[in-house]
C-alpha cells in the first residue's frame, strides 16, 4: 500500500507530461484520466485507513540528497489523508470541468494547460505527503510555479502583474521558510551527527526556545501569506480577479489549505515552545482575518472577491482552530479545511456558470438566475448554506469544534470569532440572493445547468451533503494524529511551566502535575499509566519523550 504513495504523487504529473505528446484534442482526456487515477488511489487510501492509529500509516523513505540530509520521505497520517483526498477530488473536478468545456479556448495551449494542472496537483500532493521538511518546502514552493503560468497565460485582465505579485508575495514567505527549515535541521543536528530534515528526527531533537521563536515566524510568514491571512493578503484580490475560474477553484480551495496544514503538521510539533509562546499572536491574526474578511465580503460586489474574502475569514477560523492548541480545535480545523475546500471549489465553478449567464462578475448586475435554473439554484443554495456554516452542515461541525477548542483555551477570542459566524450568514446569502434572486436584469440569462457541468458539480455537492451527515468520518480519522501533534505543544509547555523551563521533572509528583496541566489547559486526553510503570513514561503516550529524572 505504501508504494501507492509514489503512484499517487506522480501519476498526475506523468499524465500531464504524457498529454504533451498527445494530439491536441486528446490531451485533455489523458489529463482527466490522470486526475481520476489519483482520485482513485486517494479513495483507496481512505478506505484502507485505520481510524484509531496515530502516526504515519503509510510511509516511503528513500535517499535523495544524502550530502544535504534531504530524504525522499512520504507518508500519510490522519491529517493529510483527507487533504490528499480533497486535492485529488478538486483536481479531478477542475480538470473535468475544463476538459468537458474544452477549456482553454486557445487549442494551441491546451496541452500546456493540462501539463500545468498535472504539475500543480503533484506539487500540492507532495506538500501534503512530504515527511521531510525540506521536501515539504520544495513542494510548497513548486506549487506556485504552475499557478504562475496558469494565471499569467490563461487569466484575464491584468493577469501578468497579478500573477507576478502573487508569486513574489507568496514566495517572500516561503523563502524565509526555506532558511528557517535549514536552520532548524542544522541546529537540531546533535554534535557530530548527520544532518537530517526528516520531520521525525526534528521532532525528536527540539530546538532551544530562542531558536524556535525566530524560526517560527519564518514559517508563519510562509503559511499566513499562503492562506492568506489579514493583513498580508495583498496578493489575493488581483490574483483572484485575473485567475481563470477552474484554476481559481483550486487556488482558493486547495492551495490555501497547505498553509494551515503546515501549521498543524510542522510548526506545532517542531516548534512547540514557540507555538505556545505566540499562541495569542496568531489567534489575534486569525480573529482579525475572520472579521476583516467578513467585513470586506460584505461590501464587495465582485463575486470572486466575495468568495475570496470569505476564504480569508474561513482560513482565519482554521488558523485559530489550530492555535487553540487543543485536539478538538485542531481536529475541527482539519475537518474545516476539507469542508472549506469542497465549498470553495464548487463556489468558483458556480461562479464560472454565473459568469457565463450574466456576462459579468459584478454582483450588482446579476440577479434572478434561479428562474429557469432550479437545479443550479439548488446546488448553489446547498453550497451557500455550507459556506455560511449552517448548522447541520459539516462546516458547522468544523466551526463548532474550532470554536469549542478556542473557547476552552482562550475564551475571549472565541467570542469575538463567533461574530464572524453571523457575518458569514450575511455575505454568503447576499452572494446567493444577488445572483439567483430578484428580477432578471437585461442581458442576464437564466439557463439551467448543463449536464456536462452537472456531472462535475453534483458529485462535489454530494460530498458536501455526505459530510454533513457524517462529519465524524474525518474527525475520527484525524483525531489520533491531531492529538499527537498537539500533545507535543501541550507537554512541552506544561513541562516548562511545572519545572520552570528546565525541561526535566524530578519525581512522579511533577509528572502528574504536567499531566494534569496538559489535560486541563490543552484538553489532552489522559492515558492511564499502568501501575508499576515509571511515572515519567505514563504521560507521554504521543510524541517525543521528555526526559524525566526520577
Amino acid at each position, binding site marked *: 500500500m505504501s508504494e501507492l504513495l509514489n503512484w499517487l504523487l506522480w501519476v498526475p504529473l506523468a499524465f500531464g507530461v504524457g498529454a504533451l505528446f498527445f494530439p491536441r484534442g486528446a490531451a485533455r482526456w489523458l489529463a482527466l484520466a490522470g486526475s481520476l487515477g489519483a482520485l482513485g488511489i486517494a479513495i483507496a487510501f481512505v478506505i484502507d485507513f485505520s481510524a484509531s492509529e496515530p502516526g504515519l500509516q503509510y510511509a516511503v523513505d528513500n535517499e535523495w540528497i544524502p550530502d544535504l540530509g534531504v530524504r525522499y520521505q512520504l507518508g500519510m497520517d490522519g491529517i493529510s489523508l483527507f487533504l490528499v483526498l480533497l486535492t485529488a477530488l478538486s483536481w479531478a473536478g477542475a480538470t473535468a470541468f475544463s476538459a468537458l468545456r474544452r477549456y482553454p479556448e486557445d487549442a494551441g495551449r491546451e496541452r500546456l494547460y493540462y501539463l500545468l494542472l498535472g504539475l500543480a496537483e503533484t506539487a500540492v500532493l507532495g506538500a501534503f505527503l512530504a515527511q521531510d521538511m525540506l521536501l515539504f518546502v520544495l513542494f510548497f514552493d513548486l506549487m506556485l510555479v504552475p499557478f504562475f503560468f496558469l494565471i499569467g497565460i490563461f487569466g484575464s485582465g491584468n493577469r501578468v502583474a497579478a500573477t507576478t*505579485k502573487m508569486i513574489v*508575495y507568496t514566495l517572500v514567505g516561503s523563502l524565509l521558510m526555506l532558511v528557517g527549515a535549514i536552520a532548524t535541521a542544522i541546529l537540531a543536528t546533535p554534535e557530530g551527527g548527520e544532518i537530517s530534515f526528516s520531520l521525525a528526527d526534528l521532532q525528536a531533537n527540539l530546538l532551544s526556545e530562542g531558536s524556535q521563536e525566530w524560526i517560527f515566524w519564518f514559517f508563519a510568514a510562509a503559511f499566513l501569506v499562503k492562506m492568506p491571512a489579514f*493583513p*498580508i*493578503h*495583498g496578493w489575493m484580490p488581483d490574483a483572484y480577479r485575473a485567475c481563470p475560474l477552474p484554476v481559481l477553484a483550486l487556488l482558493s480551495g486547495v492551495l490555501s489549505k497547505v498553509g494551515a496544514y503546515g501549521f498543524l503538521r510542522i510548526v506545532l510539533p517542531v516548534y512547540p515552545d514557540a507555538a505556545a509562546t505566540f499562541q495569542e499572536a496568531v489567534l489575534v491574526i486569525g480573529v482579525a482575518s475572520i472579521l*476583516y474578511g467578513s*467585513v*470586506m465580503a*460584505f*461590501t*464587495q460586489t465582485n463575486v470572486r472577491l466575495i468568495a475570496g474574502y470569505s476564504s480569508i475569514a474561513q482560513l482565519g477560523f482554521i488558523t485559530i482552530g489550530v492555535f487553540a492548541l*487543543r*485536539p*478538538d480545535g*485542531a*481536529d475541527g480545523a482539519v475537518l474545516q479545511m476539507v469542508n472549506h475546500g469542497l465549498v470553495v471549489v464548487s463556489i468558483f465553478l458556480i461562479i464560472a456558470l454565473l459568469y457565463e449567464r450574466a456576462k459579468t462578475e459584478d454582483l450588482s448586475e446579476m440577479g*434572478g438566475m434561479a*428562474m*429557469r435554473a*432550479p437545479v443550479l439554484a*439548488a446546488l448553489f443554495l446547498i453550497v451557500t448554506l455550507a459556506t*455560511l456554516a*449552517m*448548522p*447541520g452542515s459539516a462546516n*458547522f*461541525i468544523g466551526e*463548532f*469544534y474550532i*470554536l*469549542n477548542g478556542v*473557547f*476552552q483555551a482562550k*475564551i475571549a477570542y*472565541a*467570542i469575538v470569532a*463567533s*461574530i464572524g*459566524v*453571523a*457575518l458569514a*450568514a*450575511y455575505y454568503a*446569502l*447576499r452572494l446567493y*440572493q444577488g445572483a*439567483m*434572486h*430578484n*428580477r432578471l436584469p437585461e442581458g442576464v440569462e437564466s439557463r439551467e445547468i448543463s449536464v456536462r457541468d452537472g456531472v462535475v458539480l453534483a458529485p462535489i455537492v454530494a460530498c458536501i451533503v455526505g459530510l454533513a451527515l*457524517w*462529519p*465524524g468520518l474525518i*474527525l*475520527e480519522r*484525524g*483525531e489520533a494524529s*491531531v492529538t499527537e501533534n498537539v500533545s507535543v505543544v501541550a507537554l512541552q509547555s506544561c513541562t516548562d511551566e511545572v519545572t520552570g523551563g528546565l525541561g526535566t521533572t524530578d519525581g512522579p509528583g511533577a509528572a502528574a502535575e504536567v499531566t494534569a496541566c496538559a489535560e486541563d489547559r490543552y*484538553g489532552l486526553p489522559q492515558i492511564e499509566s499502568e501501575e508499576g510503570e515509571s511515572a515519567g513514561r505514563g504521560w507521554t503516550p504521543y510524541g517525543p519523550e521528555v526526559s524525566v529524572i526520577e
Partner: protein
Amino acid sequence: MSATAYGWLVLAFPLAGSLIIAFGWRALPGRAAGWIGTAAIALAFASSIGALVMLQDEPAEARHLTSSLWDYASAAGLDIQLGILVDPLSVFMCLVVTGVSALIHLYSVAYLDSDRGYARFFSYLNFFVFSMLLLVLAGNFVLLIVGWAFVGFASYALISFWYRRGTATAAGMKAFVINVVGDVGLVLAALLVFRELGTFDYLDSFEAARETFSVNEGVVVAICLLLLVGAFAKSAQVPLHTWLPDAMEGPTPVSALIHAATMVTAGVYLIARMYPLFELAPTAADIAAFGGLATLIIAATIALAVTDLKRIIAYSTMSQIGYMVVGVSIGAYVGGLFHLMTHAFFKALLFMAAGSVIAAMANVQNIDRMSGFRRALPFTSLLLIVGALALAGFPPLSGWFSKDEILVFAAERGGMYWIFAVGGYLAAFLTAFYAFRIGFRVVAGDPCDEARELERGHLPHAEPTNPLTGEPEDTDVGFPGPEHHIAERAQPMAWAMGALGVLSVVGGVVQIPGVTHVIESFLEPTFEESTLFHLVPSTGAAWTGLLVGAVVSATGIALAYYCYVANPGVTGRAIERLSGVHRFLFNKWYFDELQDALVYRPMIAVGRFANSIFEPVVVQGIVDGAVGLVRGAGVLVRGAQSGFVRAYALLLLGGFAALGVYFLVVSS
C-alpha cells in the same frame, strides 16, 4: 414500537415528504405535491400520537427516553450524537406542530394551487416541519442548534418564496441574519455548557448543572442569557423582533404556520426545555420575563396603528408570544405551553381567514380599504370573528383560558411579578381592541368594491403589484399566481379553517381551572424537578383572574365596536389629535430605524471603509511600500550606473577604500 421509534418516525415522514417532492418535482402532476406533503405531515401527526401513547405507557418517572442513530461528530473529547429525547414536553410540541401543520398543509393545497412554485413550496414546507420537529426532539444542544438553524433556513426560504420580489428577498435575508445571531447565542451557550459541565446532552447537563452551580452563579446566568439571545431572536421578542413583520412577505400559509403557530414559539419551548438552568438563574429568567412583557405591550400598541392586515396579525403574534415568554420565564410552564397551543390554533385560523380575505381583495392588504365582507365571504367572516374572539380572550374561547392562566400565575407568585399580571391585562385590553379592529373592518360596514364584485360572483382581479410598495410586478414565475383562492370556493381551505375554528373555540377545555388539568398532568414528568411547576394558583384565584380577563376583553371589544361600527369617523379624529403618538406607533417605535442606525449602517460603513480606504492604503500599502522601496533602490543603483567609466573606477577604488578602512580597524 417504542416511543423513540415513533419519535424517529415523526422526523422521518416530513423529511421523506420533502425529499420526494424535491426530487420528483418535475414528475408530480397537479396537486400531487400538495397531497404528498399533507399526507407526510398527517403521518407525522399519527406518529406523534403513537409516541404519546407509548410514552403514557411508561411509568411517570421514566418518561424521558433517549435514542441515538449514530455518532454524528464524536471525536477529541466531544461526544455529539444524532440523538433524540422523547419526553412529555417534546411530544406535546410534536402534537401541536404536526397537528397545526397538517391543517395548514391542507389549506395550502388549494391556496397555492396556481403558483408556479407549487412543488417547491411543499418541499420547503415539509422541510420546515422536519426542522421544527428536529428542534423539539433534539436530545442534545448540538442537534438543537441544527434544528434551530434549519428552522431559520426554512423560514428564510419561505419568506423569500416569491424570490422575484425584492421586498421578499430582503425580508428573508433580514429574518435569516437575525436568526443566525440567535444561533450564535445558542452556540456560545452550548460551548459554555460544555466548558463548565463537559457534556452537550440535555439530561446529563441538567443533572450536572444542579450539582455544579449555585443559584444565580455568574456562569449559569451567562448561559441562560446566551440562550435567551437565541430564544428572543427566534421568537421575535424585543429587540430582535424586527424581522417578523417583514416576514409577512411570504405566502399567507407560511405566515400562519411558521410565523404564528410553530417556529416563533421555539423560543418559548427553549426556555421551558431549559427550565433547570433558568431556575438556577432567576436573574436571567426575570430578564426574559421583562423582555416578554415589553414585547407584549409594545407589539400590542403597534398593532393598533399599522394598517397592513397581515402585519397587524404579526404584531399580535409577537404580543402573544410575549405572554408565553412571560409565562415560561416566571414558571407558569403549563400556562405558557397551553397558550402556545391555543395560540397556534386561533392565530393560524386568523391568518387563514386573512389569506382568504386578501385573495378576495385581489392581493390588497390594507385594512382601511376593506369593509363589508360579511355577505361576500360568510364562512371566512365567521371564522375571522371566531379567531378574533379567541385572540381577544373572550370567554369561553380557548384564548381566554390560556392567557389568564399565565396572568393568574404571575399574580400568585406575587411581589414584583404583579407587574406581569397588570401589564398582561393592559395588553389584553389592547389585544381585544385591535382584534376587533380587524374583525369589524373586514366584516362590518358597507361592502367595498371587491366585496360587491364577489357578491356578484366574480373574484376581482388586478394587475399584480407588490402589496407593500405598490410597484407593478411581472407574473412570470414566482409570484402569486393568476388565480386567487378563497375559502368559500376551495374545499381544502374550508376544511382546514373549519377544523381550526373548532379547536379555537373548544381548545380551552383541556385545562379549565378546577375542572380539567390534562396539560398539567401530562407535562408533569418533564418538570418534576421544577420548584415552580407545582406552584398552582387556587381554583378561586384562577376564576377571579378569568373574570377580570373576560371583563377586559369585553371592554376592548366594545371600544372597538364604538370606534369602527358605531362611530366610524372617530378613529380618524383620534389619529389627527394624537398624530405624534400615531406616527410613533405607525413607525413601529422606530425599531427598524434604530437597528439600521446601530447595526446595519455601521457594519456597511466599516465595510466601505475597509474596501475603499483600509484595503488600498494599508493592505496594498504593505505591498506597494515594499515594492516602492525595492524599486527606489533599483533606481538608485541604475542611476549610479551612469555609463561613465571613470565613475565606475571611482566606485571601485572607493569600495576598496571602505574595505581598507575596515581592515585597518580590525588590524591589531
